[in-house]
């Protein structure tokens, strides 16, 4: 899908249903990645019950949400995971789920391989154990590779190897692509966000400006790489990257968290971007169509401080969540603005990271950006 200005203008106004809906099934996770967007670790007793999750899938089906991106936490930890998967597939709600791979054994790999409309993304954040495990924890690289081998042996087909690009792995893109090739899988690269636990690790892990330039050219040279439209802020470097090159928050994108709270995007888990709950009257459809926050986000974007920049059309000011959590004004440049305008922008007082609605082991407080 190439950049199409007329289509982008329409998408800015919102869609009848999201085309990129992330549903975090649980906060339970057996890993504790230092950049986890949802600060996952422990299950919350208020997470959606099986019946509620089934009803939510039915709502998605009624709205013709064609597929959902399922994450967590580690979604396979839910005891009803396969029940929910079976129900979604039966209702023609495709599922792309992200996993750390630790629970993908031979039996589960075979079960997944036998299902229609299911895609799997196995996460690694480095091309070797040293780089990966520094972010994802000891043993996590070997576990993920073992899961990839199980999926390949089970004949799953083209699963995804999902990587968050960091300062530590930005030089490993060729090696990461080679790992995906080994399993006839597809490489998926996404942007590090200063959200969740990523608030604390952003300064240390974010790619340098030079690495971002190299990444942009690497992506142009490797158009088969999936990115989830993640790097549109880099399109200001020249020809646009593949994708809509637009912040989709509340327009084509949203997040449903484990207790059914809906946010504008998976990187913006904060009260300011809270739209409503699927548990309220009217359910998810009403939140998507009528939430005041979403109505606001679907208004045409003002260029704000970026109005005088010739690249505005290319990057549209970048990522709302990245600006918010680094204390930058939302109508100004992205912290990783390729022209360096993000560095020049004056940060406002950095917001306290939301004490999420779920019980959390320890509160995290944002540190001011360097």
């Amino acid at each position, binding site marked *: *899908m190439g950049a*199409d200005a*007329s*289509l982008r203008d*329409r998408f800015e*106004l919102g*869609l*009848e*249903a999201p*085309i990129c809906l992330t549903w975090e099934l649980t906060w339970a996770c057996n890993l504790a990645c230092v950049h986890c967007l949802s600060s996952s670790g422990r299950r919350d007793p208020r997470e959606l019950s099986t019946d509620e999750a089934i009803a939510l899938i039915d709502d998605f089906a009624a709205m*013709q949400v*064609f*597929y959902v991106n399922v994450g967590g936490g580690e979604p396979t930890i839910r005891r009803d995971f396969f029940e929910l998967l079976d129900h979604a597939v039966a209702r*023609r709600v*495709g599922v792309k789920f992200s996993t750390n791979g630790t629970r993908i054994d031979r039996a589960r790999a075979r079960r997944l391989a036998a299902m*229609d*409309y299911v*895609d799997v993304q196995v996460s690694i954040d480095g091309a070797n154990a040293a780089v990966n495990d520094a972010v994802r924890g000891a043993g996590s690289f070997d576990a993920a590779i073992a899961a990839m081998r199980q999926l390949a042996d089970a004949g799953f087909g083209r699963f995804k190897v999902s990587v968050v690009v960091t300062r530590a792995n930005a030089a490993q893109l060729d090696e990461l692509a080679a790992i995906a090739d080994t399993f006839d899988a597809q490489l998926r690269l996404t942007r590090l966000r200063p959200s969740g636990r990523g608030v604390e690790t952003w300064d240390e892990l974010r790619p340098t400006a030079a690495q971002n330039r190299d990444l942009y050219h690497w992506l142009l040279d490797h158009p088969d790489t999936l990115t989830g439209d993640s790097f549109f802020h880099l399109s200001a470097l020249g020809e646009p990257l593949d994708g809509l090159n637009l912040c989709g928050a509340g327009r084509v994108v949203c997040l449903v968290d484990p207790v059914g709270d809906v946010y504008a995007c998976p990187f913006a888990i904060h009260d300011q971007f809270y739209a409503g709950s699927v548990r309220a009257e009217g359910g998810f459809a009403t939140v998507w169509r009528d939430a005041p926050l979403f109505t606001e986000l679907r208004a045409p974007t003002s260029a704000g401080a970026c109005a005088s920049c010739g690249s505005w059309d290319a990057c549209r000011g970048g990522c709302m969540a990245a600006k918010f959590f680094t204390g930058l004004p939302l109508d100004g440049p992205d912290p990783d603005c390729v022209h360096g305008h993000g560095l020049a922008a004056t940060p406002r007082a950095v917001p306290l990271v939301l004490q999420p609605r779920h019980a959390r082991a320890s509160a995290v407080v944002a540190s001011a950006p360097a």
Partner: protein
Amino acid sequence: MTAAPSGVARTFDPDQPARLHPLVALREESFGALAYHYGERRLVFLKTPALVGVLEDLERHESARAAVAAHVEVDQVEDYVRALARLFDSGVIDGR
């Protein structure tokens, strides 16, 4: 029409009968519709309501061209036939 083993013709012939691929779902939007191909996991944007009407009606006409003619002005028929050819190449429609 000579069909490939999968039942999908190799090249698009607008004078042959066509259909929306059984694995494709349409969702109406203000600009037209989104088409999602469950087999290819591909999202396609249909940018006019008339094109959506054509796709929904394909099976009721003896040819793809006839379906187009029922929905658009004469001077637009060739544009829409070309749009159908692209949708054929991406698997959204096929022969029947």
